[in-house]
């Protein structure tokens, strides 16, 4: 199983527009920024580029350069990403609970409660 606390995956997938961009790329196999932007009303090229950067840093898509164009496609392990996303949603809830409890009992058993792992590996 993939690292269950992949914050980068989680925040990349937490945005509806980014999920829709992934869906489009999955549907077509490979797309350029311009091709993606042309399929969205109200989302400009610059916004699409920044979404693509977040998706790429989270390891969800890969970039292939071909002259002036960059083509984007899904990485080969999307199922692992779904697992990581789900795991982080649940893990996130427990960590928040631990944080809240820590604040409530400030000082008590501080080293014991809510171990965190902020690793970014996807």
């Amino acid at each position, binding site marked *: 199983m993939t690292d269950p606390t992949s914050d980068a995956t989680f925040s990349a997938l937490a945005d509806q527009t980014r*999920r829709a*961009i992934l869906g489009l790329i999955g549907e077509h196999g490979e797309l350029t920024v311009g091709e993606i932007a042309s399929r969205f009303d109200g989302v400009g090229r610059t916004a699409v580029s920044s979404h693509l950067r977040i998706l790429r840093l989270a390891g969800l898509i890969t970039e292939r350069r071909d002259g002036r164009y960059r083509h984007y496609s899904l990485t080969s392990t999307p199922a692992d990403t779904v697992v990581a996303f789900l795991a982080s949603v649940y893990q996130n809830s*427990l960590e928040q609970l631990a944080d809240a409890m820590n604040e409530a009992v400030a000082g008590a058993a501080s080293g014991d409660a809510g171990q965190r792992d902020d690793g970014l590996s996807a």
Partner: protein
Amino acid sequence: MAELVLSSEVRLAADPSELFALFGSGDPSLGWLFGSEAEALAPGALVRLALPIGEGSRVHGTARVLSCKPVRRIDLVHESPWFGHVACHLDPLRSGGTRLRIRVSIDDREFTRLGADLGLLCGSDAEGWEVPLGLLTSLSGSAGILGRSTVNCAQLAVEEINADGGVAGRDVRLMVADDATDPGTGVVAMRRLCGVSGIAAVVGMHSSATYSATSPIAVALGIPYLYTPTSEVVPTHPLLIHFGERPLDQLHRALPLLAEATGGSRWFLAGNDYSWPRAIGMAAREVIERMGGTVSGEGYVPLGTEDFTPVISAIGEHGTDHVVSSFVGQDHVRFESEFSSSGLRSTTRTFAPLMDDAVVEHLGDSAAGIWNALGYFVGMDSAENREFLRRYADRFGECAPPVSAAAEGVYEAVHTWATACRSGGGTDPPSLLRGLRTSTYRGPRRCGRGGSLESLLLGEATPAGVQVIDELPVAAPA
């Protein structure tokens, strides 16, 4: 069936009884799971979740308590935005404190559906011997609270059809996609469903805002689109087939009866700000003016509104005898609940064209007295309805989300589709359209040929659910 299992744990200084008492308190700072809202921990009780997976905001979901062993274990069934089982174990530590473990299981079909909705997996294709039938509905976003019972009803209909020999000698396979109550997401989900090899039709139970973005795709690709909720949209192509109640039918039968019950003549029109509530407002104004009443004011707010105080204050300031309330999903629940807390419920009566058994379950006592006219309520007294409810309970168990008009409409649409395909001699569009003109499916609703609604039930919300108080014939289509 294969399933994905996830485990996660934390060690906490609080002891199990302290933690157990926090579950369901509705305090979001405790995390979305323990900070969920649960009125009771009895089997079948509703748990409201607010997951931190929206843009800035939260995605509302629901779960239900499956079982609960005080202080040590809570088992939940997640209904939306995805379906799965969550077991929370609270183990006391010898050193004091608690080891809190959660074990989440999600079956592979739901995992594939979710992966596809996240944009990551291409979704499963049906096997060659199966007929794929799409269902586009809202499993997340404001309308997500209706999603699980809708999927259940579609699945039940498909299983009944298959037990009865399928259609054209083949089994039907249901493919589900989530529009997240968002037209842009709906377009991607619809394209994906329409891309499934051999897809026979898509059943839609979602907002008209999504419909106006997705229906051109169905038409362009030649795929029949069976749209089930109450809707103002007039179908413009033979492949766009509507089953839901029409606003003018709902309003022109019911509003005069409500005015007669109150003796009042002033109306306030309130709702979410998009095409359907606006159409309800226009139709209501027409009906109200025709019967000599007056519209004292109007207020529309965006989908996903958290604070309804401005609209509620406007209703109070304008003075009114009735409110026509066309809010959707979570917004509907929140508006009616705040409206009830404001005390206005005792001086005004509300007609809400989406009030059904699911909304009343979420609202409890604060819904009491709201009226609506729909093709179906759970309390409908007929042999077909008793049989349907028995089958639903047998198939999905005591802790399943209760049926609502929205979900039952999908059950009928899937059966009507299969009946028409059998009668027309195939699942291709010409056979389906021929079959719809000549065949009738007899389910709980009073429908004529091709699923056309013949009568509406007038329902009043009570603390025990929606009570059916009258049956109103639908006017013949113009």
